[in-house]
Protein backbone atom coordinates (compact mmCIF):
# COMPACT_ATOMS: atom_id res chain seq x y z
CA UNK A 1 0.00 0.00 0.00
CA UNK A 2 2.72 2.43 0.98
CA UNK A 3 4.75 1.81 -2.15
CA UNK A 4 1.59 2.27 -4.15
CA UNK A 5 1.02 5.68 -2.58
CA UNK A 6 4.63 6.65 -3.05
CA UNK A 7 4.59 5.64 -6.71
CA UNK A 8 1.47 7.68 -7.22
CA UNK A 9 3.06 10.70 -5.61
CA UNK A 10 6.18 10.28 -7.70
CA UNK A 11 4.22 10.12 -10.94
CA UNK A 12 2.19 13.12 -9.98
CA UNK A 13 5.16 15.26 -9.15
CA UNK A 14 6.57 14.47 -12.59
CA UNK A 15 3.27 15.59 -14.08
CA UNK A 16 3.25 18.75 -12.01
CA UNK A 17 6.78 19.53 -13.01
CA UNK A 18 6.12 18.99 -16.71
CA UNK A 19 2.97 21.07 -16.64
CA UNK A 20 4.54 23.88 -14.68
CA UNK A 21 7.47 24.06 -17.10
CA UNK A 22 5.12 24.06 -20.09
CA UNK A 23 2.82 26.70 -18.74
CA UNK A 24 5.53 28.83 -17.26
CA UNK A 25 7.60 28.93 -20.42
CA UNK A 26 4.65 28.87 -22.77
CA UNK A 27 2.95 31.84 -21.21
CA UNK A 28 6.22 33.69 -21.02
CA UNK A 29 6.72 33.35 -24.75
CA UNK A 30 3.17 34.19 -25.69
CA UNK A 31 1.96 36.93 -23.42
CA UNK A 32 3.44 39.79 -21.51
CA UNK A 33 1.79 40.78 -18.23
CA UNK A 34 3.30 44.25 -18.45
CA UNK A 35 1.61 44.84 -21.82
CA UNK A 36 -1.68 43.68 -20.34
CA UNK A 37 -1.51 45.67 -17.14
CA UNK A 38 0.03 48.89 -18.45
CA UNK A 39 -2.44 51.52 -19.46
CA UNK A 40 -1.99 53.46 -22.67
CA UNK A 41 -0.42 56.47 -21.03
CA UNK A 42 2.38 54.49 -19.36
CA UNK A 43 5.85 55.82 -20.08
CA UNK A 44 8.83 53.58 -20.74
CA UNK A 45 10.06 54.05 -17.15
CA UNK A 46 6.66 53.09 -15.83
CA UNK A 47 6.80 49.88 -17.81
CA UNK A 48 10.27 48.99 -16.59
CA UNK A 49 9.28 49.71 -13.01
CA UNK A 50 6.18 47.58 -13.40
CA UNK A 51 8.19 44.70 -14.87
CA UNK A 52 10.59 44.90 -11.93
CA UNK A 53 7.77 44.82 -9.44
CA UNK A 54 6.17 41.83 -11.10
CA UNK A 55 9.59 40.18 -11.25
CA UNK A 56 9.28 39.51 -14.97
CA UNK A 57 12.37 41.51 -15.91
CA UNK A 58 14.64 38.68 -14.71
CA UNK A 59 15.81 35.91 -17.04
CA UNK A 60 13.16 33.25 -17.46
CA UNK A 61 15.16 30.47 -15.83
CA UNK A 62 15.82 32.61 -12.79
CA UNK A 63 12.11 33.32 -12.58
CA UNK A 64 11.30 29.64 -12.84
CA UNK A 65 13.73 28.51 -10.19
CA UNK A 66 12.70 31.20 -7.78
CA UNK A 67 9.15 30.11 -8.41
CA UNK A 68 10.08 26.48 -7.65
CA UNK A 69 11.89 27.35 -4.47
CA UNK A 70 8.95 29.48 -3.35
CA UNK A 71 6.54 26.65 -4.05
CA UNK A 72 8.70 24.34 -1.99
CA UNK A 73 8.11 26.77 0.86
CA UNK A 74 4.40 26.75 0.17
CA UNK A 75 4.36 30.14 -1.51
CA UNK A 76 2.69 30.00 -4.90
CA UNK A 77 3.34 33.60 -5.70
CA UNK A 78 1.24 36.69 -6.11
CA UNK A 79 -1.27 37.27 -8.85
CA UNK A 80 -0.13 39.89 -11.36
CA UNK A 81 -3.64 41.13 -11.82
CA UNK A 82 -5.17 40.99 -8.36
CA UNK A 83 -1.93 41.66 -6.52
CA UNK A 84 -2.85 39.11 -3.90
CA UNK A 85 -1.40 35.72 -2.96
CA UNK A 86 -2.55 33.18 -5.50
CA UNK A 87 -3.44 30.66 -2.81
CA UNK A 88 -5.84 33.11 -1.22
CA UNK A 89 -7.57 33.65 -4.54
CA UNK A 90 -7.94 29.95 -5.22
CA UNK A 91 -8.99 28.96 -1.72
CA UNK A 92 -11.51 31.77 -1.74
CA UNK A 93 -13.16 30.35 -4.84
CA UNK A 94 -12.75 26.66 -4.30
CA UNK A 95 -15.87 26.19 -2.12
CA UNK A 96 -18.08 27.63 -4.86
CA UNK A 97 -16.78 25.13 -7.40
CA UNK A 98 -16.86 22.17 -5.04
CA UNK A 99 -20.39 22.67 -3.81
CA UNK A 100 -21.79 22.81 -7.32
CA UNK A 101 -19.73 19.78 -8.30
CA UNK A 102 -20.98 17.76 -5.34
CA UNK A 103 -24.56 18.79 -5.93
CA UNK A 104 -24.21 17.68 -9.55
CA UNK A 105 -22.76 14.32 -8.53
CA UNK A 106 -25.49 13.88 -5.97
CA UNK A 107 -28.16 14.56 -8.55
CA UNK A 108 -26.45 12.19 -10.95
CA UNK A 109 -26.40 9.35 -8.43
CA UNK A 110 -29.90 9.89 -7.07
CA UNK A 111 -31.52 10.10 -10.46
CA UNK A 112 -29.14 8.11 -12.63
CA UNK A 113 -28.55 4.93 -10.63
CA UNK A 114 -32.21 3.97 -10.06
CA UNK A 115 -32.98 4.81 -13.68
CA UNK A 116 -30.10 2.64 -14.81
CA UNK A 117 -31.06 -0.31 -12.63
CA UNK A 118 -34.61 -0.03 -13.85
CA UNK A 119 -33.45 -0.05 -17.48
CA UNK A 120 -31.14 -2.95 -16.83
CA UNK A 121 -33.86 -5.05 -15.29
CA UNK A 122 -36.46 -4.19 -17.90
CA UNK A 123 -34.55 -4.37 -21.10
CA UNK A 124 -37.43 -4.80 -23.48
CA UNK A 125 -39.80 -2.19 -22.10
CA UNK A 126 -40.67 0.86 -24.10
CA UNK A 127 -39.80 3.15 -21.19
CA UNK A 128 -36.31 1.62 -21.16
CA UNK A 129 -35.88 2.38 -24.81
CA UNK A 130 -36.81 5.99 -24.26
CA UNK A 131 -34.53 6.29 -21.22
CA UNK A 132 -31.75 4.88 -23.31
CA UNK A 133 -32.43 7.32 -26.12
CA UNK A 134 -32.62 10.23 -23.70
CA UNK A 135 -29.27 9.38 -22.19
CA UNK A 136 -27.76 9.35 -25.66
CA UNK A 137 -29.30 12.76 -26.35
CA UNK A 138 -28.06 14.04 -23.01
CA UNK A 139 -24.58 12.83 -23.89
CA UNK A 140 -24.71 14.51 -27.25
CA UNK A 141 -25.68 18.07 -26.30
CA UNK A 142 -22.66 20.32 -25.90
CA UNK A 143 -22.44 21.57 -22.37
CA UNK A 144 -22.26 25.28 -23.19
CA UNK A 145 -25.25 25.11 -25.50
CA UNK A 146 -27.26 23.28 -22.89
CA UNK A 147 -26.33 25.93 -20.32
CA UNK A 148 -27.63 28.66 -22.56
CA UNK A 149 -30.89 26.84 -23.16
CA UNK A 150 -31.30 26.38 -19.40
CA UNK A 151 -30.85 30.11 -18.83
CA UNK A 152 -33.18 30.94 -21.67
CA UNK A 153 -35.94 28.68 -20.37
CA UNK A 154 -35.71 28.82 -16.58
CA UNK A 155 -34.28 32.27 -15.96
CA UNK A 156 -35.60 34.37 -18.80
CA UNK A 157 -38.87 32.79 -19.92
CA UNK A 158 -40.22 31.35 -16.68
CA UNK A 159 -38.17 33.50 -14.29
CA UNK A 160 -38.05 30.66 -11.80
CA UNK A 161 -34.34 30.80 -11.11
CA UNK A 162 -31.60 33.44 -11.22
CA UNK A 163 -29.42 33.33 -14.30
CA UNK A 164 -26.04 34.17 -12.91
CA UNK A 165 -23.91 34.89 -9.90
CA UNK A 166 -23.73 33.13 -6.58
CA UNK A 167 -26.26 34.94 -4.42
CA UNK A 168 -26.17 34.91 -0.63
CA UNK A 169 -23.79 32.69 1.23
CA UNK A 170 -23.91 31.25 4.73
CA UNK A 171 -20.80 30.61 6.78
CA UNK A 172 -20.21 26.95 7.53
CA UNK A 173 -17.08 26.24 9.59
CA UNK A 174 -15.74 29.55 8.34
CA UNK A 175 -16.36 28.70 4.70
CA UNK A 176 -18.98 30.60 2.73
CA UNK A 177 -21.43 28.17 1.18
CA UNK A 178 -24.55 28.69 -0.88
CA UNK A 179 -26.58 25.59 -0.20
CA UNK A 180 -27.67 26.57 3.30
CA UNK A 181 -29.93 29.42 2.30
CA UNK A 182 -32.64 29.63 -0.28
CA UNK A 183 -31.17 32.47 -2.28
CA UNK A 184 -27.82 30.72 -2.57
CA UNK A 185 -29.47 27.42 -3.36
CA UNK A 186 -31.58 28.95 -6.10
CA UNK A 187 -28.41 30.33 -7.69
CA UNK A 188 -26.81 26.92 -7.50
CA UNK A 189 -29.54 24.99 -9.22
CA UNK A 190 -28.95 25.88 -12.86
CA UNK A 191 -25.16 25.44 -12.85
CA UNK A 192 -25.52 22.20 -10.91
CA UNK A 193 -28.21 20.89 -13.24
CA UNK A 194 -26.10 21.81 -16.23
CA UNK A 195 -23.27 19.69 -14.87
CA UNK A 196 -25.63 17.01 -13.61
CA UNK A 197 -27.36 16.21 -16.89
CA UNK A 198 -24.20 14.63 -18.20
CA UNK A 199 -23.68 12.88 -14.87
CA UNK A 200 -27.20 11.49 -14.85
CA UNK A 201 -26.75 10.05 -18.33
CA UNK A 202 -23.44 8.54 -17.35
CA UNK A 203 -24.71 7.03 -14.12
CA UNK A 204 -27.76 5.64 -15.89
CA UNK A 205 -25.60 3.92 -18.44
CA UNK A 206 -23.14 2.61 -15.90
CA UNK A 207 -25.88 1.26 -13.71
CA UNK A 208 -27.66 -0.23 -16.69
CA UNK A 209 -24.71 -2.06 -18.13
CA UNK A 210 -23.64 -3.09 -14.64
CA UNK A 211 -27.07 -4.47 -13.95
CA UNK A 212 -27.11 -6.37 -17.20
CA UNK A 213 -23.74 -7.91 -16.58
CA UNK A 214 -24.54 -8.90 -13.04
CA UNK A 215 -27.90 -10.36 -13.99
CA UNK A 216 -26.19 -12.76 -16.37
CA UNK A 217 -23.80 -14.01 -13.72
CA UNK A 218 -24.28 -17.58 -12.60
CA UNK A 219 -24.86 -16.65 -8.99
CA UNK A 220 -27.76 -14.45 -9.98
CA UNK A 221 -29.32 -17.18 -12.03
CA UNK A 222 -28.81 -19.45 -9.09
CA UNK A 223 -30.33 -16.98 -6.68
CA UNK A 224 -33.29 -16.52 -8.93
CA UNK A 225 -33.70 -20.24 -9.21
CA UNK A 226 -33.70 -20.40 -5.42
CA UNK A 227 -36.74 -18.15 -5.48
CA UNK A 228 -35.26 -15.10 -3.81
CA UNK A 229 -37.59 -12.17 -4.27
CA UNK A 230 -36.71 -9.66 -6.93
CA UNK A 231 -36.56 -6.77 -4.48
CA UNK A 232 -34.11 -8.64 -2.27
CA UNK A 233 -32.12 -9.68 -5.28
CA UNK A 234 -31.73 -6.09 -6.37
CA UNK A 235 -30.94 -4.83 -2.91
CA UNK A 236 -28.58 -7.50 -1.69
CA UNK A 237 -26.75 -8.70 -4.77
CA UNK A 238 -27.18 -6.28 -7.58
CA UNK A 239 -26.67 -2.95 -5.84
CA UNK A 240 -23.48 -4.05 -4.15
CA UNK A 241 -21.98 -5.40 -7.31
CA UNK A 242 -22.73 -2.54 -9.63
CA UNK A 243 -21.50 -0.06 -7.10
CA UNK A 244 -17.87 -0.77 -7.86
CA UNK A 245 -17.63 0.71 -11.34
CA UNK A 246 -19.97 3.52 -10.37
CA UNK A 247 -17.85 4.57 -7.41
CA UNK A 248 -14.71 4.33 -9.47
CA UNK A 249 -15.95 6.35 -12.36
CA UNK A 250 -17.77 8.90 -10.25
CA UNK A 251 -14.60 9.49 -8.32
CA UNK A 252 -12.43 9.72 -11.38
CA UNK A 253 -14.95 12.02 -13.01
CA UNK A 254 -14.98 14.40 -10.05
CA UNK A 255 -11.76 15.82 -11.34
CA UNK A 256 -13.18 16.03 -14.85
CA UNK A 257 -16.23 17.73 -13.43
CA UNK A 258 -14.13 20.34 -11.69
CA UNK A 259 -12.15 20.84 -14.87
CA UNK A 260 -15.27 21.09 -16.95
CA UNK A 261 -16.75 23.60 -14.58
CA UNK A 262 -14.74 26.21 -16.52
CA UNK A 263 -17.48 26.14 -19.14
CA UNK A 264 -20.40 26.13 -16.74
CA UNK A 265 -18.88 28.77 -14.49
CA UNK A 266 -18.24 31.00 -17.47
CA UNK A 267 -21.78 30.82 -18.78
CA UNK A 268 -23.40 31.21 -15.36
CA UNK A 269 -20.82 33.66 -14.00
CA UNK A 270 -20.32 31.36 -11.05
CA UNK A 271 -17.35 32.67 -9.07
CA UNK A 272 -15.44 29.41 -8.82
CA UNK A 273 -11.93 28.39 -9.75
CA UNK A 274 -12.84 27.48 -13.33
CA UNK A 275 -13.81 31.04 -14.07
CA UNK A 276 -10.72 32.26 -12.27
CA UNK A 277 -8.60 30.04 -14.52
CA UNK A 278 -10.16 31.29 -17.74
CA UNK A 279 -9.92 34.92 -16.65
CA UNK A 280 -6.30 34.38 -15.67
CA UNK A 281 -5.41 32.78 -18.98
CA UNK A 282 -6.89 35.77 -20.77
CA UNK A 283 -5.10 38.21 -18.48
CA UNK A 284 -1.73 36.46 -18.77
CA UNK A 285 -1.83 36.02 -15.00
CA UNK A 286 0.79 33.32 -14.99
CA UNK A 287 1.08 32.72 -11.23
CA UNK A 288 -2.61 31.92 -10.99
CA UNK A 289 -2.58 29.58 -13.99
CA UNK A 290 0.45 27.64 -12.79
CA UNK A 291 -0.83 27.35 -9.24
CA UNK A 292 -4.23 26.25 -10.46
CA UNK A 293 -2.68 23.48 -12.51
CA UNK A 294 -0.57 22.25 -9.66
CA UNK A 295 -3.57 22.19 -7.37
CA UNK A 296 -5.72 20.38 -9.90
CA UNK A 297 -3.09 17.72 -10.33
CA UNK A 298 -2.76 17.31 -6.59
CA UNK A 299 -6.50 17.05 -6.35
CA UNK A 300 -6.46 14.31 -8.94
CA UNK A 301 -3.87 12.41 -7.00
CA UNK A 302 -6.00 12.55 -3.90
CA UNK A 303 -9.17 11.65 -5.75
CA UNK A 304 -7.58 8.70 -7.52
CA UNK A 305 -6.12 7.53 -4.28
CA UNK A 306 -9.40 7.70 -2.43
CA UNK A 307 -11.12 5.91 -5.28
CA UNK A 308 -8.56 3.12 -5.19
CA UNK A 309 -9.02 2.69 -1.48
CA UNK A 310 -12.80 2.65 -1.78
CA UNK A 311 -12.47 0.19 -4.60
CA UNK A 312 -10.39 -2.08 -2.42
CA UNK A 313 -12.93 -1.85 0.37
CA UNK A 314 -15.80 -2.72 -1.92
CA UNK A 315 -14.08 -5.53 -3.70
CA UNK A 316 -11.98 -7.66 -1.39
CA UNK A 317 -10.36 -9.42 -4.34
CA UNK A 318 -8.24 -6.34 -4.99
CA UNK A 319 -5.05 -6.04 -3.03
CA UNK A 320 -2.27 -3.53 -3.25
CA UNK A 321 1.05 -5.15 -2.77
Amino acid sequence: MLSFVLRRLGQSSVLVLIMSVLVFFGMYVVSDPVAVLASDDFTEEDRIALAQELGVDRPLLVQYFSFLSNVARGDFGTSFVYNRPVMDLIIERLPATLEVAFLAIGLGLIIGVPMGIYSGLNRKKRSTKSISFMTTVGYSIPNFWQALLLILVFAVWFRWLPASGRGDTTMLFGIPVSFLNLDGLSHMILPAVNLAIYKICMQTRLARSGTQEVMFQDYMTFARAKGISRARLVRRHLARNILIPIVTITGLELGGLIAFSTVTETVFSWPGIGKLLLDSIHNADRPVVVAYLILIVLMFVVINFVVDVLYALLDPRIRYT
Partner: protein
Amino acid sequence: MMEAALDQDLTPKADKPEPTRWERFRKVFKGHPMAVVGLIGISMFVLVAILAPWIAPQDPYDLAKLDILDGLLPPGSTLFDGTYSVLGTDALGRDILSGVMYGLRISLFVAFTAVLVGSAIGVLLGLLAALRGGWVETIIMRAVDLKISFPGILLALMLLAIFGTGVDKVIYALIIGAWASKARLVRAVALSEMKKEYIDAARLAGLSDFRIMTRFLLPNSISPVLVVLPMSISGAIGAEATLSFLGVGVPITEPSLGLLIANGNDYLLSGKWWISIFPGLVLVAMVLCINVVSDRLRDHANPYLRAKD
Protein backbone atom coordinates in the same frame (compact mmCIF):
# COMPACT_ATOMS: atom_id res chain seq x y z
CA MET B 1 -14.20 0.45 -40.28
CA MET B 2 -17.51 -0.61 -38.84
CA GLU B 3 -17.17 -4.11 -40.21
CA ALA B 4 -13.79 -4.63 -38.72
CA ALA B 5 -15.19 -3.58 -35.39
CA LEU B 6 -17.18 -6.75 -35.25
CA ASP B 7 -14.30 -9.09 -35.68
CA GLN B 8 -14.50 -10.14 -32.11
CA ASP B 9 -13.92 -13.69 -32.95
CA LEU B 10 -11.55 -14.25 -35.79
CA THR B 11 -11.16 -17.96 -35.60
CA PRO B 12 -13.54 -19.21 -38.24
CA LYS B 13 -16.03 -21.82 -37.26
CA ALA B 14 -15.49 -24.95 -39.28
CA ASP B 15 -19.09 -26.02 -39.38
CA LYS B 16 -20.54 -23.02 -41.19
CA PRO B 17 -19.24 -20.80 -43.96
CA GLU B 18 -17.64 -17.55 -42.80
CA PRO B 19 -20.15 -14.71 -43.20
CA THR B 20 -19.11 -12.01 -45.60
CA ARG B 21 -18.33 -8.56 -44.24
CA TRP B 22 -21.62 -7.24 -45.55
CA GLU B 23 -23.55 -9.99 -43.82
CA ARG B 24 -21.86 -9.33 -40.54
CA PHE B 25 -22.42 -5.63 -41.00
CA ARG B 26 -26.10 -6.17 -41.61
CA LYS B 27 -26.41 -8.40 -38.61
CA VAL B 28 -25.23 -5.65 -36.30
CA PHE B 29 -27.86 -3.19 -37.40
CA LYS B 30 -30.72 -5.52 -38.14
CA GLY B 31 -33.62 -4.85 -35.83
CA HIS B 32 -32.13 -1.60 -34.62
CA PRO B 33 -33.82 1.15 -36.60
CA MET B 34 -32.31 3.93 -34.47
CA ALA B 35 -28.83 2.76 -35.31
CA VAL B 36 -29.69 2.55 -38.98
CA VAL B 37 -31.02 6.11 -38.88
CA GLY B 38 -27.81 7.13 -37.17
CA LEU B 39 -25.75 5.46 -39.84
CA ILE B 40 -27.68 7.20 -42.60
CA GLY B 41 -27.36 10.48 -40.74
CA ILE B 42 -23.61 10.13 -40.45
CA SER B 43 -23.27 9.35 -44.14
CA MET B 44 -25.34 12.41 -45.02
CA PHE B 45 -23.34 14.71 -42.80
CA VAL B 46 -20.06 13.40 -44.17
CA LEU B 47 -21.34 13.76 -47.73
CA VAL B 48 -22.47 17.35 -47.14
CA ALA B 49 -19.14 18.16 -45.52
CA ILE B 50 -17.21 16.77 -48.47
CA LEU B 51 -19.40 18.42 -51.09
CA ALA B 52 -19.77 21.76 -49.28
CA PRO B 53 -17.69 23.84 -51.75
CA TRP B 54 -19.90 22.67 -54.61
CA ILE B 55 -23.33 22.71 -53.02
CA ALA B 56 -23.14 25.63 -50.57
CA PRO B 57 -24.96 28.74 -51.87
CA GLN B 58 -22.09 30.99 -50.75
CA ASP B 59 -18.41 30.71 -49.92
CA PRO B 60 -18.54 31.91 -46.32
CA TYR B 61 -14.75 32.16 -46.12
CA ASP B 62 -14.40 34.62 -48.98
CA LEU B 63 -14.55 37.95 -47.19
CA ALA B 64 -15.20 39.86 -50.42
CA LYS B 65 -18.44 37.92 -50.89
CA LEU B 66 -19.85 38.88 -47.49
CA ASP B 67 -21.51 42.18 -46.72
CA ILE B 68 -22.55 43.37 -43.28
CA LEU B 69 -25.52 45.03 -44.94
CA ASP B 70 -26.77 41.46 -45.40
CA GLY B 71 -26.31 40.84 -41.67
CA LEU B 72 -28.91 39.27 -39.40
CA LEU B 73 -31.41 38.53 -42.15
CA PRO B 74 -34.07 36.01 -41.11
CA PRO B 75 -34.47 32.67 -42.91
CA GLY B 76 -35.81 33.05 -46.44
CA SER B 77 -34.07 36.33 -47.31
CA THR B 78 -32.17 37.30 -50.44
CA LEU B 79 -28.62 38.64 -50.21
CA PHE B 80 -27.11 41.56 -52.14
CA ASP B 81 -25.58 39.28 -54.76
CA GLY B 82 -28.89 37.52 -55.31
CA THR B 83 -28.09 34.46 -53.22
CA TYR B 84 -31.17 33.05 -51.55
CA SER B 85 -30.58 32.41 -47.87
CA VAL B 86 -32.78 29.57 -46.67
CA LEU B 87 -31.63 29.67 -43.06
CA GLY B 88 -30.89 33.39 -42.78
CA THR B 89 -27.56 35.13 -42.12
CA ASP B 90 -25.37 35.99 -39.16
CA ALA B 91 -24.16 39.45 -38.15
CA LEU B 92 -21.54 39.59 -40.89
CA GLY B 93 -23.82 38.56 -43.72
CA ARG B 94 -22.64 34.97 -43.70
CA ASP B 95 -25.31 32.62 -45.05
CA ILE B 96 -26.11 30.23 -42.20
CA LEU B 97 -26.70 27.24 -44.46
CA SER B 98 -23.34 27.74 -46.14
CA GLY B 99 -21.74 28.43 -42.79
CA VAL B 100 -23.15 25.20 -41.40
CA MET B 101 -21.96 23.19 -44.41
CA TYR B 102 -18.44 24.59 -44.18
CA GLY B 103 -18.56 24.44 -40.39
CA LEU B 104 -19.46 20.76 -40.60
CA ARG B 105 -16.43 20.33 -42.80
CA ILE B 106 -14.11 21.94 -40.27
CA SER B 107 -15.66 20.18 -37.29
CA LEU B 108 -15.50 16.76 -38.93
CA PHE B 109 -12.05 17.34 -40.36
CA VAL B 110 -10.66 18.41 -37.00
CA ALA B 111 -12.32 15.56 -35.11
CA PHE B 112 -11.48 12.82 -37.63
CA THR B 113 -7.88 13.89 -38.10
CA ALA B 114 -7.25 14.28 -34.41
CA VAL B 115 -8.88 11.02 -33.39
CA LEU B 116 -7.39 8.95 -36.22
CA VAL B 117 -3.87 10.26 -35.73
CA GLY B 118 -4.20 10.14 -31.96
CA SER B 119 -5.57 6.60 -32.04
CA ALA B 120 -2.89 5.44 -34.45
CA ILE B 121 -0.25 6.75 -32.11
CA GLY B 122 -2.04 5.15 -29.20
CA VAL B 123 -2.35 1.76 -30.90
CA LEU B 124 1.29 1.81 -31.90
CA LEU B 125 2.47 2.69 -28.41
CA GLY B 126 0.12 0.14 -26.87
CA LEU B 127 1.44 -2.65 -29.11
CA LEU B 128 5.00 -1.59 -28.51
CA ALA B 129 4.45 -1.68 -24.77
CA ALA B 130 2.91 -5.13 -24.93
CA LEU B 131 5.50 -6.56 -27.25
CA ARG B 132 8.66 -5.11 -25.79
CA GLY B 133 7.83 -4.95 -22.10
CA GLY B 134 10.61 -3.78 -19.81
CA TRP B 135 11.53 -0.13 -19.68
CA VAL B 136 9.74 0.66 -22.95
CA GLU B 137 6.51 -0.51 -21.41
CA THR B 138 7.18 1.30 -18.16
CA ILE B 139 7.79 4.61 -19.87
CA ILE B 140 4.81 4.32 -22.16
CA MET B 141 2.41 3.20 -19.50
CA ARG B 142 3.56 5.85 -17.02
CA ALA B 143 3.00 8.44 -19.70
CA VAL B 144 -0.47 7.01 -20.23
CA ASP B 145 -1.17 7.22 -16.52
CA LEU B 146 -0.02 10.80 -16.49
CA LYS B 147 -2.21 11.75 -19.40
CA ILE B 148 -5.25 9.94 -18.12
CA SER B 149 -4.95 11.49 -14.70
CA PHE B 150 -5.59 14.88 -16.24
CA PRO B 151 -8.84 16.05 -17.81
CA GLY B 152 -8.51 16.36 -21.56
CA ILE B 153 -10.46 19.56 -21.96
CA LEU B 154 -8.27 21.32 -19.41
CA LEU B 155 -5.12 20.08 -21.10
CA ALA B 156 -6.38 21.29 -24.47
CA LEU B 157 -7.37 24.64 -22.98
CA MET B 158 -3.89 25.05 -21.53
CA LEU B 159 -2.11 24.04 -24.72
CA LEU B 160 -4.20 26.42 -26.81
CA ALA B 161 -3.75 29.21 -24.32
CA ILE B 162 -0.01 28.68 -24.62
CA PHE B 163 0.40 28.02 -28.30
CA GLY B 164 -2.34 30.19 -29.70
CA THR B 165 -5.45 29.37 -31.65
CA GLY B 166 -5.96 27.90 -35.11
CA VAL B 167 -7.23 24.76 -36.79
CA ASP B 168 -3.84 23.04 -36.65
CA LYS B 169 -3.34 23.87 -32.99
CA VAL B 170 -6.78 22.52 -32.09
CA ILE B 171 -5.92 19.30 -33.89
CA TYR B 172 -2.63 18.94 -31.99
CA ALA B 173 -4.39 19.59 -28.72
CA LEU B 174 -7.03 16.95 -29.47
CA ILE B 175 -4.41 14.43 -30.64
CA ILE B 176 -2.70 14.81 -27.31
CA GLY B 177 -6.08 14.13 -25.76
CA ALA B 178 -6.83 11.02 -27.82
CA TRP B 179 -3.88 8.66 -27.71
CA ALA B 180 -3.59 7.55 -24.11
CA SER B 181 -6.80 5.62 -23.61
CA LYS B 182 -6.21 3.71 -26.86
CA ALA B 183 -2.70 2.79 -25.83
CA ARG B 184 -3.96 1.37 -22.57
CA LEU B 185 -6.75 -0.55 -24.27
CA VAL B 186 -4.56 -2.02 -26.98
CA ARG B 187 -1.86 -3.05 -24.56
CA ALA B 188 -4.36 -4.93 -22.44
CA VAL B 189 -5.81 -6.77 -25.43
CA ALA B 190 -2.42 -7.44 -26.95
CA LEU B 191 -1.09 -8.84 -23.69
CA SER B 192 -3.90 -11.36 -23.49
CA GLU B 193 -3.38 -12.14 -27.16
CA MET B 194 0.29 -12.79 -26.60
CA LYS B 195 -0.51 -15.51 -24.11
CA LYS B 196 -2.04 -17.50 -26.95
CA GLU B 197 -0.14 -20.28 -28.52
CA TYR B 198 0.02 -19.01 -32.04
CA ILE B 199 2.22 -16.14 -31.00
CA ASP B 200 4.67 -18.57 -29.43
CA ALA B 201 4.50 -20.58 -32.59
CA ALA B 202 5.22 -17.51 -34.66
CA ARG B 203 8.13 -16.62 -32.43
CA LEU B 204 9.49 -20.14 -32.76
CA ALA B 205 9.09 -19.91 -36.51
CA GLY B 206 11.51 -16.97 -36.32
CA LEU B 207 9.16 -14.16 -37.22
CA SER B 208 10.44 -10.74 -36.30
CA ASP B 209 8.75 -8.59 -33.67
CA PHE B 210 7.64 -6.25 -36.40
CA ARG B 211 6.01 -9.07 -38.36
CA ILE B 212 4.30 -10.40 -35.27
CA MET B 213 3.04 -6.97 -34.49
CA THR B 214 1.68 -6.16 -37.93
CA ARG B 215 0.49 -9.63 -38.89
CA PHE B 216 -1.03 -10.88 -35.67
CA LEU B 217 -1.20 -8.42 -32.84
CA LEU B 218 -2.47 -5.43 -34.77
CA PRO B 219 -5.43 -7.08 -36.47
CA ASN B 220 -6.46 -8.86 -33.32
CA SER B 221 -6.06 -5.98 -30.90
CA ILE B 222 -7.57 -3.29 -32.98
CA SER B 223 -11.23 -4.28 -32.73
CA PRO B 224 -11.87 -2.81 -29.30
CA VAL B 225 -10.26 0.43 -30.46
CA LEU B 226 -12.55 0.56 -33.45
CA VAL B 227 -15.52 0.06 -31.18
CA VAL B 228 -14.66 3.13 -29.09
CA LEU B 229 -13.55 5.17 -32.09
CA PRO B 230 -16.95 6.70 -32.93
CA MET B 231 -17.33 7.77 -29.31
CA SER B 232 -13.90 9.38 -29.48
CA ILE B 233 -14.88 11.22 -32.62
CA SER B 234 -18.10 12.58 -31.20
CA GLY B 235 -16.17 13.52 -28.08
CA ALA B 236 -13.61 15.35 -30.19
CA ILE B 237 -16.36 17.20 -32.06
CA GLY B 238 -17.77 18.33 -28.73
CA ALA B 239 -14.34 19.28 -27.41
CA GLU B 240 -13.57 21.34 -30.48
CA ALA B 241 -16.92 23.11 -30.17
CA THR B 242 -16.27 23.82 -26.51
CA LEU B 243 -12.81 25.21 -27.18
CA SER B 244 -14.14 27.40 -29.96
CA PHE B 245 -16.91 28.56 -27.67
CA LEU B 246 -14.35 29.56 -25.05
CA GLY B 247 -12.52 31.56 -27.69
CA VAL B 248 -9.41 29.40 -27.99
CA GLY B 249 -10.45 27.26 -30.96
CA VAL B 250 -10.64 27.81 -34.69
CA PRO B 251 -10.15 31.30 -36.21
CA ILE B 252 -13.23 33.51 -36.50
CA THR B 253 -12.98 33.82 -40.26
CA GLU B 254 -13.33 30.05 -40.69
CA PRO B 255 -15.95 29.09 -38.14
CA SER B 256 -16.64 25.52 -37.10
CA LEU B 257 -20.08 24.54 -35.80
CA GLY B 258 -19.00 25.37 -32.26
CA LEU B 259 -17.89 28.85 -33.22
CA LEU B 260 -21.06 29.45 -35.22
CA ILE B 261 -23.05 28.60 -32.10
CA ALA B 262 -20.87 30.84 -29.97
CA ASN B 263 -21.40 33.72 -32.42
CA GLY B 264 -25.12 33.17 -32.36
CA ASN B 265 -25.27 32.84 -28.58
CA ASP B 266 -25.13 36.62 -28.33
CA TYR B 267 -28.28 36.83 -30.39
CA LEU B 268 -30.33 34.08 -28.82
CA LEU B 269 -32.08 36.38 -26.36
CA SER B 270 -32.82 38.99 -28.99
CA GLY B 271 -35.01 36.69 -31.03
CA LYS B 272 -32.47 36.05 -33.80
CA TRP B 273 -32.61 32.39 -33.00
CA TRP B 274 -31.56 31.08 -36.39
CA ILE B 275 -27.90 32.01 -36.02
CA SER B 276 -27.10 29.57 -33.26
CA ILE B 277 -30.09 27.24 -33.36
CA PHE B 278 -29.35 25.77 -36.80
CA PRO B 279 -25.64 25.09 -36.24
CA GLY B 280 -26.55 23.83 -32.76
CA LEU B 281 -29.14 21.43 -34.11
CA VAL B 282 -26.76 20.12 -36.72
CA LEU B 283 -24.05 19.65 -34.12
CA VAL B 284 -26.37 17.85 -31.74
CA ALA B 285 -27.82 15.75 -34.57
CA MET B 286 -24.41 14.71 -35.81
CA VAL B 287 -23.07 13.84 -32.39
CA LEU B 288 -26.30 12.01 -31.67
CA CYS B 289 -26.04 9.95 -34.86
CA ILE B 290 -22.48 8.99 -34.08
CA ASN B 291 -23.34 8.11 -30.50
CA VAL B 292 -26.33 5.99 -31.48
CA VAL B 293 -24.17 3.97 -33.87
CA SER B 294 -21.41 3.84 -31.31
CA ASP B 295 -23.82 2.50 -28.69
CA ARG B 296 -24.97 -0.15 -31.07
CA LEU B 297 -21.45 -1.24 -31.85
CA ARG B 298 -20.59 -1.39 -28.20
CA ASP B 299 -23.68 -3.30 -27.24
CA HIS B 300 -22.95 -5.71 -30.03
CA ALA B 301 -19.38 -6.14 -28.90
CA ASN B 302 -20.56 -6.84 -25.37
CA PRO B 303 -20.85 -10.63 -25.14
CA TYR B 304 -23.38 -10.52 -22.33
CA LEU B 305 -25.82 -8.69 -24.49
CA ARG B 306 -24.98 -10.48 -27.71
CA ALA B 307 -26.03 -13.73 -26.19
CA LYS B 308 -29.54 -12.42 -26.18
CA ASP B 309 -29.53 -10.91 -29.64
